Each structure stands twice: as C-alpha cells, then as structure tokens.
C-alpha cells in the first residue's frame, strides 16, 4: 500500500543509528511501562490484560501494514489459531503456560509461512482477498474440527503455573506475566522496525520497483515480515487464551480481522506507537459501550469513516505531525 511518506522518519534513521533508541522514544516506553505497572491496582486487571493482548496484536499487524505496506484482511487466522492451540495445549495436554503459548505462537508462525508464501505472489486488493480466503478456511476448520469445540469454543482453560513453579491463577500475578510478554513483543517490533531489515521493508513499501532494481530479493523480505507479523499476532492470541481461559470462534472470525485494521488505522499506521493508542481506545470503547448494543458497531463504523476521510495518519500520526517528531 503506497502510504503517504513521512519525511520525519528519515530523521529517526539518522538519530537512531547513533545510540539506539532516540530519547523521546525511550521516554514514551518508560512512561508506558510505569503506567502499566500501576494499572492493575487501579483498574480491573483482566480488562488491562485484554488491552495489552490487543495492543500486541495491533502492533504486529501494523508491522505488516504500516511498515510492509501490505493490507492483510485475514489476520484473525493467526491470532485465533494460536489461541485455539494454546488453549488446547494448556487444557488437554496439560502444558505449563509458557509452553502452551509457545505452541500457539509456533502454529501461527507456521500458518503465516504457508499462507504468506502463497499470498505475497499477489499485490494490493488481490493480496488482501487471498489472505481473507485463507482466514475463512481457518474459520471453517475451527468450526468443524472437534478439538476446537465449535460454537462453544475451548472453555475452562487452566492458567497453570509458570515454569511449573509460580501459579498464575491470580489475576495480578498473571498480569505481570502478560505485561512481560507484551512489552517484550513491543520492544522486538521496535527493534525490527529500526533495523536495516526494517529500512529495506520501508523502501519496498514506498517504491517496490526501485527496491527490486537495487537488487533486493523483495519477495523474501515480504515473506519475512509476513511471518514475523503472523508470529507476533499468534503470541498475542495465545496469551489472550490464557487470560480469558477461553478460545472461541470470535477469534477467527473476519470481523476480528476488521477490528485490528480499525485499531491500526485509528492509531496511525506506519507509526510505532499508533497501534497502542488505537488498540487501547477500541477495547475501552467496546467495554464501555457494550451495554448499548448495536451502537458499538455504529461507533466503529463512524471511526472508520472519519479516520479514512479526515485522519488518515491516525491519532498518533497527527500527534507526530504537531510535535514534529516521529512516533
């Protein structure tokens, strides 16, 4: 997707090369971490964990969309399939939580490799439709396969004990485990974006023919970013399964794919912190508007419309423009 180029990004490349993360990014991460450490004592911990999981999902998706320029309409496939596998691993195989999450993430990575490998042969709307088709097949499989429990989903997933030693049954303890995973994921994504690999991805996004002419194996890069994005989405999904102790069809439905696009769009695609804001906003909105039935759908629609017409850069994008600093 030929996104509008952010000239400020070149400033980042210049400063980041010198000593790692630019100062204002360090401050933002520190601020987020501080907030996240206090949050479970102030807000309902399960709610904050939900926000965290979706933050990771949206950031993973943004890796593909904002930095890879590829709009996938079927990302729920990786999120959801990882969720199912992790739930099954924890409940039926009795694995400890970190192993269950690993299983889920590995599944997502594998699917990402297979589907991505096929999907990247096409571009633009066709790429999006292929990813959608694959996601629908995953949905269908989830509906039919006995182990996924169909409409019921996999319920009563045990949270288990981390490494067999630390029980995660308590919401607070689990929270810090989830925070560690999500934060680790975010830092990893940040690292990927600001690495040479990330630079090449942005070059491919902005002008693919030129990247090809410079000798880059474009298809390989695209596949790599797809797999990374799918893997991290799977990490988010597996963690979510343990938080809610449930894996259900909602996780693989195409509306979940639509929601993650919404989160990224709202927050700002192509920004680092955009999806964090987008995910937090959407999850909070869904939580508080849940009592108003279809108004949630209408509100999401309005956000899409207003976002596309007026705020294509998203909240963080607009913020970034004001502050004249890349975010």
């Amino acid at each position, binding site marked *: *997707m*030929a*996104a509008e180029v952010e000239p400020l990004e070149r400033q980042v490349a210049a400063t980041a090369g010198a000593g790692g993360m630019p100062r204002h990014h360090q401050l933002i991460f520190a601020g987020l971490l501080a907030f996240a450490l206090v949050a479970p004592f102030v807000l309902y911990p399960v709610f904050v964990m939900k926000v965290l999981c979706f933050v990771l999902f949206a950031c993973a998706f943004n890796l593909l969309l904002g930095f890879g320029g590829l*709009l996938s309409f079927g990302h729920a496939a990786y999120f959801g399939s990882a969720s199912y596998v992790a739930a099954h691993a924890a409940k039926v195989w009795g694995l400890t939580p970190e192993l269950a999450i690993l299983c889920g993430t590995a599944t997502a990575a594998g699917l990402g490799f297979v589907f991505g490998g*096929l999907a990247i*042969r*096409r571009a*633009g*709307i*066709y790429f*999006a*439709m*292929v990813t*959608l*088709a*694959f996601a*629908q*097949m995953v*949905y*269908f499989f989830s509906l*039919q396969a006995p182990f996924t429990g169909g409409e019921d989903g996999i319920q009563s997933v045990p949270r288990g004990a981390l490494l067999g030693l630390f029980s995660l049954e308590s919401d607070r303890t689990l929270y810090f485990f989830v925070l560690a995973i999500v934060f680790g994921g975010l830092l990893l994504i940040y690292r990927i974006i600001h690495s040479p690999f990330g630079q090449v991805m942005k070059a491919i996004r902005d002008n693919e023919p030129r990247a090809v002419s410079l000798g880059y194996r474009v298809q390989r890069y695209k596949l790599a970013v797809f797999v990374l994005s799918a893997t991290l989405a799977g990490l988010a999904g597996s963690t979510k399964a343990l938080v809610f102790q449930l894996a259900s069809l909602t996780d693989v439905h*195409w509306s979940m794919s*639509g929601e993650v*696009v919404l989160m990224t*769009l709202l927050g700002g695609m192509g920004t680092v912190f955009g999806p964090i804001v987008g995910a937090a906003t959407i999850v909070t909105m869904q939580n508080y508007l849940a009592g108003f*039935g*279809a*108004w*949630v*759908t*209408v*509100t*999401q*629609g*309005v*956000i*899409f*419309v207003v*976002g*596309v*017409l007026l705020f*294509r850069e998203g909240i963080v994008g607009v913020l970034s423009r004001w502050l004249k600093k890349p975010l």
Partner: protein
Amino acid sequence: MFELLGIPPQALFGQLLLGLINGSFYALLSLGLAVIFGLLNIINFTHGAQYMMGAFVAWMLLDYLGIGYWWALVLVPVIVGLTGIVLERLMISRLYHLDHLYGLLLTFGLALIIQGLFRNQYGISGEAYSIPSQLVGVQNLGFMFLPNYRLWVIVASVVVCLGTWFVIEKTRLGAYLRAATENPTLVGAFGINVPRLVTLTYGFGVGLAALAGVLAAPIYSVNPNMGADLIIVVFAVVVIGGMGSILGAVLTGFGLGLIEGLTKVFYPEGSAVVIFVIMAIVLLVKPAGLFGRTA
C-alpha cells in the same frame, strides 16, 4: 445423509436448479460490484448493506405506505441509488486520488454504520414480506416443485444482467463510461462531465444491489444482517470472475450458485467455505480472474 453415489438424477437437477436461483442473487450483486469496481475502481464494501436497504425499503413501502411489490421493484432501486449518490458525492469521491484500499476501508465503515443503525431500529428477528399474489404457487416440473417466485427471480436477474452488460459493452453510453475510466482527462476534454458520469454509475451499481434486495425480500427474512455475510461471498465471486469483467462476474455468480448447490448435496457443512477455496486457487493460478484482463 445421502450416499455420494446413487443420488437420483432428479434430485440432482432439483438441487442444481435451486443453485441457479441462488446464483441469480450472486450474479446481480456481483454485477453491481463489478460495475462499480471495474468502471470506477471503487471497492464498494457497502454493497451488502445497500442490498439490505433495498429489502428494508421495499418492506417499508409496503408497511408504511401500502406500496406493493411491483412498484417497489422500480422505486426501491431509485431511492437507494439516490442514497448511494449522496454517499459518493459527499465521501467516496474524496478518496479517488488515493490508493483504492482507502475506499475499501471507508465503505466498510459505512456498511457498519448502516447495519448498526438498522439493527438498533428494527432488531434482528426480521420483518415479514409476502410473495406478491401473482407469483404464489408452484410449477410441477416432475423432478421437483419449483415455486413460481423463484422462477421469476431467475428470469428477472438474467434479464437485468444481460441488459446491463449490453448497455456497458455495446452502447455509446457504455463506451463513454469505459473511456472515462481509462482516461478521464481526455474524455473530459471532449465535453463529457466525467464526475457526473462516475456518480451516476455508482448510483446505478447501488441500485442493482437494492434490486437484488427487493427480489430477496419475499423469500429471505428481511433483517439487518442479511447483507453482512453475503458481502464477502459476493466479493469472492467478483474476484474470481475478474474484477474488471462484467460478464465474468455474472457468469461466475451463476456458476458459484451451481457449485454451492452441488456442495449442499454432497457436503452441506462445506457449502459456506467452498467459494473461498475456489477464490484462493484462482487467485494463485490466474490472478486477474477467470475472465479478467490483466491490469
């Protein structure tokens, strides 16, 4: 369940005929989408919601104003088409200079809004709309009883599809339209009001969706969700048929109906997903679609 082999031919014909009827809806809807995408490069995700609006407006005309089915067939596409024109003028036209995936996101958002509003207002149980009295009854075809109304659906959609194809491919108006999409500046230089042509075409495409909605109202339940799951199937049809090809969309629509009909006999649970399997295969093998011209 019936065995895979030994299904009597009459039963098979019956299923195929039913599949053809469903195919008519797919064809009409994908026709509208193909017109809008093929000629305007707009990915109209609102199409499902506009189909639903067509059914609802038909019901509203009957329930609130006492206006019956036959008038609805003419009025509803005009009314809903007008709303489509408003949308296009106010919002969609602002995105023409951007990547057309933005258009997809915008129309997706619009679809959510429309569906949400209707759901708030009318709930989800669905409204009843009866088959017009002239079309009640069944024809005994020997291998099955075919309701007259369903026969009418096939006839109507074939007529409309052929008519539209003819206008676009064989008339001067169609030629202007095709030219305008390929080179708007040049066509504009000839004195043709290109933006107006685009707007009217969008309105026409939306009107087609609404017409499908009116045709659907007597046999499917008129409820706010009726377009939601249908839209991704219709997209799949258009993509398989070739996004620029009108004929491709129509033929694929009918074809999908037939394939779905067969699947329902041999593996009914799979009838919802067979289209996506086909779409994935086609996209990977022949990306421009079965009838599409490579862009």
